[in-house]
């Protein structure tokens, strides 16, 4: 095989392997860090995680049921600034919780008097420094619940 051929295969391997490795790490991060921290709430088995870039936003829609206690965890990789999240009533956009008013706490524990569809709005903040080289990292949104 020629030098060029070997270099081409090497680059191709890297291009394929890198995203796969990043995704696999995202799953490990969600499992080892975020899911583990839901305790004593029981994780529901759903997986919502993605590689986000500083400044990027995400939204998640989910129905939460009365007579259950929930923990929402929004976990960001440690190369990112503390991830911001808000919980919003999907019917009227009313903000029910904003973690920026609670020292950017990664979790929120709550229960409901009646079942509701809620929206979780997530933002990876852009740090004031190093804006020319935005970082990318895993962000996981996970849920745990238990009987009320």
């Amino acid at each position, binding site marked *: 095989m020629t*030098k060029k051929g*070997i*270099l081409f295969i090497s680059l191709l391997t*890297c291009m394929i392997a890198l995203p*796969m*490795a990043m995704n*696999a*790490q*995202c*799953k*490990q*991060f969600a*499992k080892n*860090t975020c899911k583990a921290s839901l305790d004593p709430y*029981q*994780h*529901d*088995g*759903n*997986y919502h*995680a993605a590689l*986000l*870039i*500083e*400044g*990027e936003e995400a939204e*998640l*829609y*989910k*129905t939460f*049921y*009365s007579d*259950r*206690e929930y923990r929402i965890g929004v976990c*960001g*990789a440690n*190369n990112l600034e*503390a991830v911001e999240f808000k919980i919003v009533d999907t019917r*009227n956009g009313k903000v*029910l*919780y904003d973690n920026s008013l609670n020292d950017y*706490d990664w*979790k*929120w524990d*709550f*229960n409901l*008097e*009646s*079942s*509701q*569809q809620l929206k979780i709005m997530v933002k990876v903040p852009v740090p004031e420094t190093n*804006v020319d*080289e*935005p970082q*990318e*990292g*895993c962000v996981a*949104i996970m*849920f745990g*619940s238990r009987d009320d």
Partner: protein
Amino acid sequence: MNRKPLLFGRIFLLLFLMLGMILTGCNLGKKSEGEGSWDFEASGTLDTETQEQLNTAKRIFYALPSPLETAMLIKNAGAAYNEELMNPVSNSSKYITSKSKALNLGIYSTDLSYASLFDQSQATLDYVGAAKEMADGLNILDAINEETVTQLEEQINNRDAIIDIISETLMNSSSFLKENDLEGTASVVLVGGWIEGLYIATNLVNEHDLEDNKLVERIVDQKLSLDIMINLLESSPEDADAQAVLEDVKALKTIFDKITIDQGEVTAVEDPETNVTTLKSESSIKITNRVFTELKTKVIEIRNSYIS
């Protein structure tokens, strides 16, 4: 001097170093020192132009109740255990297409969760076998492996441990499908599990006892997830299985639209001692016997088409 071995050596050394940088740079497996401090770091930077483009597009996730959550809701509503309502494991050999395997992975996962929450040891083991067969058929690597089955057998009398194992297998399946761009299949699995939950719940309700019935409330609450489910399935337009299932969900929506849920404004009140917030609101539901029967009939029709 032959330089080829040297060249190969350098390239493999380069690849090895890159792999090492990916893995060690991410600090995998290290324990977090406290809540909110994360031990993972992904390397990689993007230029400002890419950043600006990405800022205009939001990632949107639609979360459906997982098979485990569905089973928890049924049990929490005071429902009974009825094995006759579950899809017999003997049916597992019938499922040949990817659609039937995905639907029945969801269905068997709900049955598995339902059995385990009611401490049904033998059924739990039987249904994990059926779910494994479906996952293997979809080439979902290691979602449910022999180790999982052994762990279940060892912990069969420890309900919390069993639930943890089931949660782990569901997460493995879901993450595998999403990471391999099989979002449509992941959605079909969830719809299968959700339909099974609706089938079990509607069949456990006495149709003449709809008032102040917790299980009926849980069934009606599913109306709140219908638009999430439709959006989720519509986000995989290229997936024929997801689009076929979407038609079933839309047919159910026309019936759910006949049910009324009146909800007042939600107010968040935090308990300063426990830091737990209560979302206070008033809500009332209205469902007639006729609509309930229509819903139950449709659910039976769809579910039976999935398991046949």
